[in-house]
């Protein structure tokens, strides 16, 4: 209890810090210089309508590459962590009760639709809200659905792994192409900017976002599969 009291006291201290921040905070009336630059120049610079996407994929592309790497890393480590505790023989795993017929059929029907939705979301990332991360998460949910209906389904680790790695590698290659062909690492102007507002526009942004979507989807899927393949408690 002393400990809880101490923690509360510390959090009060932290709260005081936060309160200090709030007191010192006044919402801007106008965009600051950075945001204003993006508002004025995104369309011309990158050809993307969704400014957040432009920032994510191009202006702050290095962050995003890092972010994708976080997921890659997490997926790899989750697999490493869990591989250490996994029994070698998959047959020894206790089979859970089979899912109902309705769920099984439903998911088989739904899965392709969900996959399609995911692809739509990341392919349009430069125009509308949404993008690679959201789309990737949607892709993964299809895998999740399949896992729920058939926990012992053997997923192509190899396929997931190849999609994950290949999209990541191409992402890096595109980044390097930016150094060689345009103004810097991950510059999206290696492809023509196209017509503002069209699906195939905004230079490399749709390509990159598609890669991100595939990669993120594969990574989430890989995490889920790793987790689902751990042994049950004995």
């Amino acid at each position, binding site marked *: 209890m002393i400990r809880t009291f101490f923690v509360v006291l510390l959090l009060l201290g932290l709260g005081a810090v936060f309160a200090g921040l709030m007191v010192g905070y006044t919402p801007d009336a106008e965009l600051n210089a950075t945001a204003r630059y993006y508002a004025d120049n995104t369309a011309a610079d990158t050809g993307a309508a*969704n400014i*957040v*996407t432009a920032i994510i994929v191009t202006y702050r592309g290095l962050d995003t590459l890092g972010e994708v790497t976080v997921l890659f890393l997490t997926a790899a480590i989750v697999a490493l962590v869990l591989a250490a505790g996994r029994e070698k023989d998959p047959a020894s795993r206790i089979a859970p009760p089979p899912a109902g017929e309705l769920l099984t059929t439903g998911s088989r029907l739904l899965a392709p639709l969900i996959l399609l939705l995911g692809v739509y*979301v990341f392919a349009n990332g430069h125009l509308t*809200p*949404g*993008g690679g*991360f*959201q789309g990737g*998460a*949607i892709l*993964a*949910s299809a895998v*999740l659905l399949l896992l729920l209906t058939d926990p012992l389904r053997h997923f192509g680790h190899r396929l997931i792994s190849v999609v994950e790695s290949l999209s990541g590698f191409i992402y890096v290659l595109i980044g390097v192409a930016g150094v060689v062909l345009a103004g810097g690492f991950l510059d999206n102007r290696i492809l023509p900017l196209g017509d503002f507002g069209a699906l195939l526009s905004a230079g490399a942004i749709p390509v990159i976002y598609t890669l991100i979507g595939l990669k993120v989807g594969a990574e*989430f899927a890989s*995490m*889920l599969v790793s*987790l*689902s393949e*751990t042994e*049950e*408690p004995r």
Partner: protein
Amino acid sequence: MTLVTTVMGLLLALASVGAAVVAIRVRSLPVAILAAGLVSLLAAVLFVLLAAPDVAMTEAAIGSGLTTFLFFFVLGRVRGGGDHD
């Protein structure tokens, strides 16, 4: 319009804080996980009010959706294994 959004925001804020308190106080772990997911979901709605649709989508899909599933996956593996509750 502004008033409506402010009232909505207030309600959402109260609800999410309430859900957060539930999440850390409730004895049952599944309920805690769901409450945390709810916090995330309510935050996603707040993001829409805050003119951040991209973030809202991500928070809903990843923060409340995928994370919650991950929790349940793990919970299913450790249930009955020496949880002190």
